[in-house]
C-alpha cells in the first residue's frame, strides 16, 4: 500500500506549525499506524531530517499516550481504539491521511504531535481520589458491592486519560474525562464521604485549566477509545447540582 501523509510539524511551543506532506510506500495492511510513522521516521533520519515527534508507549491502547487527530477524528477512523491500535487495513490504498495533534487550549503543543496534558493530572489532584492513607483499611469483602454497580463503575474507570474527548469536542470540554472519575467514585460506597467536595473541586479545576463547557454534542463519546458513555456526564451533572444545592 502507498499513502500520502500530511503531518503537523511544529518545532516547539513558541514556533508556528504547518502541515507537511510526505509519501510512504511499501506499507502492509497488518502494520499499525504508529509503525507507519516509525517507518517514515527511519527514512527522515536517513535523509538527515528531523523525525516526527509523537507520544506513545504501550502500543496496545491502555497507557493513553498516543493521542493523534487523524483525518479529522481523535484516534482516526475506527471506533473504540487508540491511535496505536489502528491498523492500515482501516485505510484505502493511496489515501491521503492528515495527522494533527490533539488541539485544545488546555493542551499546549510541545512539538509536532506531542501535547502537554498535565492539566488532566491537576484535575485529578483536585479531587480524583478517596482520602485513605496506606494501612488500616477494612477487609476487602467487608463492603459488598452489587455486581451491576461495580460493572458500571468499572466502565467509567476504564478511561485512559488520552484526551480524545477534549480534542473531539468543539468546545474543548473535558467533561467526559472528569465525569468518568466522578461517576466511578460516586457509584461506589468508598467514594461517598467526599462525594460533594470532589465534584465541585474537580469541575472548578477543569474550568481553571481552560477547558470549555458541555453543549451535549456527544462527539466525546463517539471518539472515546474506551467508548465511555455520556450517561456519566449526566450523572456528574446530577452530582454537581446536589452538591451545590445542599
Amino acid at each position, binding site marked *: 500500500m502507498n499513502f500520502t501523509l500530511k503531518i503537523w510539524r511544529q518545532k516547539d511551543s513558541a514556533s508556528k506549525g504547518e502541515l507537511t506532506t510526505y509519501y510512504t510506500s511499501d506499507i502492509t495492511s497488518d502494520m499499525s499506524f504508529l509503525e507507519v510513522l516509525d517507518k517514515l521516521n527511519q527514512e527522515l533520519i536517513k535523509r538527515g531530517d528531523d523525525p516526527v515527534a509523537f507520544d506513545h508507549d504501550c502500543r496496545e491502547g491502555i497507557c493513553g499516550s498516543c493521542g493523534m487527530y487523524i483525518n479529522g477524528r481523535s484516534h482516526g477512523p475506527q471506533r473504540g481504539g487508540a491511535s496505536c*491500535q489502528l491498523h492500515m487495513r482501516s485505510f484505502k490504498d493511496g489515501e491521503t491521511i492528515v495527522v494533527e495533534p490533539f488541539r485544545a487550549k488546555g493542551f499546549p503543543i510541545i512539538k509536532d504531535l506531542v501535547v502537554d496534558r498535565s492539566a488532566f493530572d491537576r484535575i485529578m489532584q483536585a479531587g480524583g481520589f478517596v482520602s485513605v492513607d496506606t494501612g488500616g483499611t477494612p477487609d476487602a469483602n467487608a463492603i459488598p458491592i452489587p455486581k451491576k454497580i461495580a460493572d458500571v463503575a468499572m466502565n467509567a474507570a476504564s478511561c485512559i486519560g488520552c484526551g480524545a474527548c477534549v480534542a473531539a469536542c468543539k468546545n474543548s470540554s473535558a467533561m467526559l474525562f472528569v465525569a468518568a472519575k466522578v461517576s466511578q467514585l460516586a457509584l461506589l460506597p*468508598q467514594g461517598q464521604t467526599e462525594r460533594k467536595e470532589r465534584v465541585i473541586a474537580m469541575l472548578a479545576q477543569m474550568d481553571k485549566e481552560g477547558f470549555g463547557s458541555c453543549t451535549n454534542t456527544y462527539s466525546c463519546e463517539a471518539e472515546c477509545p474506551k467508548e465511555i458513555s455520556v450517561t456519566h456526564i449526566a450523572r456528574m451533572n446530577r452530582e454537581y447540582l446536589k452538591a451545590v444545592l445542599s
Partner: protein
Amino acid sequence: MKLDAQIPEGPIEKKWDLHKFNLKLVNPANKRKYHIIVVGTGLAGASAAASLAELGYKVTAISYHESPRRAHSIAAQGGINAPKNYPNDGDSIYRLFYDTVKGGDYRAREANVYRLAQVSNSIIDQCVAQGVPFARDYGGLLDNRSFGGAQVSRTFYARGQTGQQLLLGAYSALSRQIGLGAVKFYGRRDVLDIIVADGQARGVVTRNMVTGLLETYTGDAVILATGGYGNAYYLSTNAKQSNASAIWRAHKKGAYFANACFTQIHPTCIPVSSDHQSKLTLMSESLRNDGRIWVPKKQGDARDPRQIPEDERDYYLERLYPSFGNLVPRDVASRRAKEACDRGRGVGPTKLAVYLDFADTIKRNGRDWIVQKYDNLFDMYQRITDENAFEKPMRIFPAVHYTMGGLWVDYNLMSTIPGLFVLGEANFSDHGANRLGASALMQGLADGYFIIPYTIGDYLARTKFTPMKEDHPAVVDTLSAVDNTIQKLVAVQGNQSVDQLHRKLGRIMWEFVGMSRNAAGLKKGQGEIRKLREEFWKDVKLPGTALEFNQELEKAWRVADFMELAELMATDALHREESCGGHFREEHQTDENEAKRNDKKFSYVAAWEFKGVGTPPKLHKEPLKFEYVTPSQRSYK
C-alpha cells in the same frame, strides 16, 4: 564487600514482625526534615511515593512519563494474587509462599517470599478502599480466578485491565499527596545518572525532555522503581520506553546486579507478523484457564484448524502434565511451545505459533460468558490479527515479558549503595528464576505500600547526613560526566539509526541469550554484543541537538546502556551451569527435557560487581538456604 541480606532471625512467620519491631523509627515531627527522591511512578514508585508522603516525609517523584498514569504497569492485564481464601479452596499465606518459591525454581529468598505472601492480603484491602473496581460475583463479593503455577483461585482482577486499575489507584493516592503539596512530581524528566556522595546515594541527574536541559535533584535517599529491562531484546511485551538506564547507571556506580540472565518468556503472546513489528502484544495468561493449547499431530499440517479432527490434535500440555494441564508455569509452557514449533508442528503463516482454542468453553458456557470474562482480550486479538477468536482458535507464541533479575537488594530493599533502595521489577528480589502469573503487581505494591515505608525509616534514623549543595563535587562531577556522554553521542554522526542498532541487539539476544541457551552460543553472543557496541559508538546517527525535545537522543542513551547490560546477561547465563526456571541451558536437562537444577553448585544469588565496560564483572554469591520448602525437581505432572 561481603553481601549481607539482613534476613532477620526467628521462625519464618515471625521474621517480618520481629524485624519491624527492631527497626529504628523516625519521630513523626522529624520526618519532614528528610527528603526522599523516588525515581519511577509505576505501581512500585507511585505507591511508595504516596505512602512515604502520607507518613510525613518530603518526597520528590520523577518520571520520564508526562503523567504517572502512563507507566508500563498500566498494561498489566490478568490480575494480582492474594491468599484471601475467599473461594474456600484451601489457600493460605503458606501456600502462596510455597507456590512462589517452587514456581521460582528455588532461586528466591524464602524470607522475602514469605513476607510478600504475608502483606499481599493488605494490598487487596488497600486497593478496594481506594475505589479500585475489582470484579465481583452476583452476591457483590470479590471474584477470583486461577493463574499458571497454582491450583487454587487466588487472583483478583478487574476485567483484563487489572494493572490499569491498580495503577490508577496508586496514582490517585499520589495525586492526593501532590495536591496537598507533600510530593513534588516532575514528569518528562529522564534520570540519566545517580549521585553518590561519600558512599551514599544522594540524588540524581535528569534531562528535561522538553528543553533538553540537565538538572540535578538531591536528597537523603534515592528510591529506584524504574521497571524491568526486557527491551534489551528489542521485541518484547514491555512498553516501548521501558529501559534499564537508571539501574544500569546505579550498577556502574557500585550497586550489584543480581541474576541478570533470569528473563521470563511469556507463552501467550500474539506471534510476530512482519519485520516492521515494533512490539509484541501479550494475551493474558488467564486465557489458559479456559483455552486449550494444541498443535496438529502431523508436521506441516496447514489445514484450517477447524477442519482438523480431535484425534489429529496434540493437546501437548494436557498430555505431558495431566494435573496442571494448560496451567503449568510460564517457563514450562513457553519451552514446550518452542519445542513443538522446532519439531515442525507450528501453525500459521510463519509456523511459529501454536493454537489456543476456546471452542470447548464456548460450547460449555456460551459466548456471553467469555465476553464477560475476557472481552477486551478477544477484541485486542481481532484488532491486531484481523481474526475472530470466537470462531477460530487464537495463534500464540512466546515472547520476552519480564525480568526476574535486577539490582541486588537486602531484606530492607536497599542495594549495595547505602541509601539507594530498589523496588518493583527493577530489583531481583522475590521471583527467583521464574515469576508466577499475577505476582509482579503484588510485589510492586508490597514493596511500595507495605515494605519501604518501614525499612527506609530505619536507614534514615541510623545515618548521619551532611548537607548536599549544588556545588558538591559529587553533583558537579556526575553532571559533567552525563553532559560529556551526551555530547559524545550527538557527535558520532554515523549512518545507522538507533532503532536499527537496537533491532540488531535484539536479534543477538533472542538467538543466543533467549529461551534456551548453550555455552557455545552464549560465548558467540558475548562476542557479537561487544562488536555491536563498538559499532554503535562509531555509527549511530542522531538528528537534531541535545538542547531540544529529541526522542532519538532519549532512545540512544537507553540503547547504549542496553548494549552493556546485554553482555552481563550473557555472562551470567554462561556462568550458571544449570537450568532453572526461565534459564534453560541445553546442556542441563532431564531425560524428559525438563530444567535440571544443580543445587549443590548453584543454590545462590549471583550478584555482579561492575568493573568497567568490557572488563569481566566480579561475582559475589549470596547462598540461598531453604529451611521450609525443600528443593525438589519441580513437577507439574
